[in-house]
């Protein structure tokens, strides 16, 4: 699932329905993710799977909080493999994360526009 709406409802609930703050949080998520994707792409360029662990870890936990379930799962698997020491097809998996993030971003902005 690209975006689980329950997560967004939960964020609204725990912030006491502060929609502006949740919007800011979504923007922060997108900014952070851009940095984390840069980190993942650098790991691909260097062919160094170990350096992919930290950005994958951060993107994973942020994704869980906004309900980006698929993105979170892709990152979790990459982080786990990176920690284990071997990541089969690092470039392909980072590309998949890149594509999934673009979809998540679309969905988040669309959800905001539809209000």
């Amino acid at each position, binding site marked *: 699932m690209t975006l689980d709406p329950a997560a967004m409802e939960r964020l609204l609930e725990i912030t006491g329905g502060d929609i502006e703050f949740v919007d800011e949080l979504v923007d922060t998520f997108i900014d952070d993710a851009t940095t984390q994707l840069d980190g993942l792409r650098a790991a691909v360029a260097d062919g160094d799977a170990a350096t992919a662990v930290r950005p994958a870890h951060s993107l994973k936990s*942020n994704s869980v909080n906004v309900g980006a379930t698929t993105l979170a799962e892709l990152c979790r698997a990459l982080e786990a493999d990176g920690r284990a020491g071997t990541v089969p097809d690092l470039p392909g998996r980072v590309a998949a994360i890149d594509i999934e993030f673009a979809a998540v971003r679309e969905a988040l902005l669309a959800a905001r526009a539809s209000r």
Partner: protein
Amino acid sequence: MNGGRVLVVDDTPFNRRLLVRLLTSIGHAAEEAGDGREALARLRDESAEAIDIVLLDIVMPEMDGHETLAAIKADDRLRDLPVIVISGVDELDSVTRCIRMGAADYLPKTVDPEILRARIEASLAQKRMRDNEQALLATIDRQRSQLSRFLSPQVAALVSSADGEALLAGHRREITAMFCDLRNFTGFSESAEPEEVLGFLRAYHAAMGELIVEHEATLEHFAGDGFMTFFNDPVLQPDHAARAIGLAVAMRQRFSSLSDDWRRRGHVLEIGIGIATGYATLGRIGFEGRYDYGAIGSAIILASRLSGEAAPGEILVTQRTFAAADEAAVGTPAGERTLKGFVRPVSTYAINGMADGTPPATPSEEVAR
């Protein structure tokens, strides 16, 4: 509960913002740090408000959660600061490691506001209890040092010791009491100027007080020209009789240099000392608002009567004290004395000095001073 000041240490702005927001909404002040290095710099910044709790992410660039936690626990001034580790569900190994390293608790990354609230409050309560404890210990220390200016050091130590209450409540023990006062102080205080009297008393109290502390006597009270001290309580001193005589001999010698000085100004002052050994009841004596650590018993009264009997410069001790001193002192029999309030006459000795010749003669320059 009043809010605390929480430092959120996480490398992702998303998590920091969310946590800061949640903390603020439940009444806490929150600050952010992007990694361990930044967090330690903030914690060690003494010009900033003190942090009560640290929320610490584990996976961070520069200095990660484990390193940060280790640095906090290695720092004497930060060691007691509660650290709550923030972790993902797949990081339980790290959490276990952090708790072994001294972390207070952990929070899941997908944070639930109620759990956050409960854990922060629990850690805050713990932190405040520890802070109070520290403040209390500092107060006790301060009071002890203040008290020791008013009480005998032994009594000041007793008040804050573990078995202090039982001893203060009252107990019986054999003590040696030593009372000294001046022969013709009343005449002196009538003939001398008040400033002179005060000046003399200050010098006299300072000199005698110094010896009392030096000889580890418990000062029961002093009033005007008289000092009542005793030995073997609250600190046990098996050689209490010899110690009391030793103090008396030192006092007599110190007094003679003081009185020489005053004789030159035309005032003749003489000291008289009485010492007696016997059982007394010791403990808190007085009334709400003003208690003293006191001794009640015939030895106390006997010492005071003997001091009254003593000729100028004489140290009169009971036979019991002289025997108990076990040849530590040299004395001459001074007869049987009939004393007010005592049915039978009391055998006494006048002390010449200590068997080992202490104290050595006071150097003359000290007399001049």
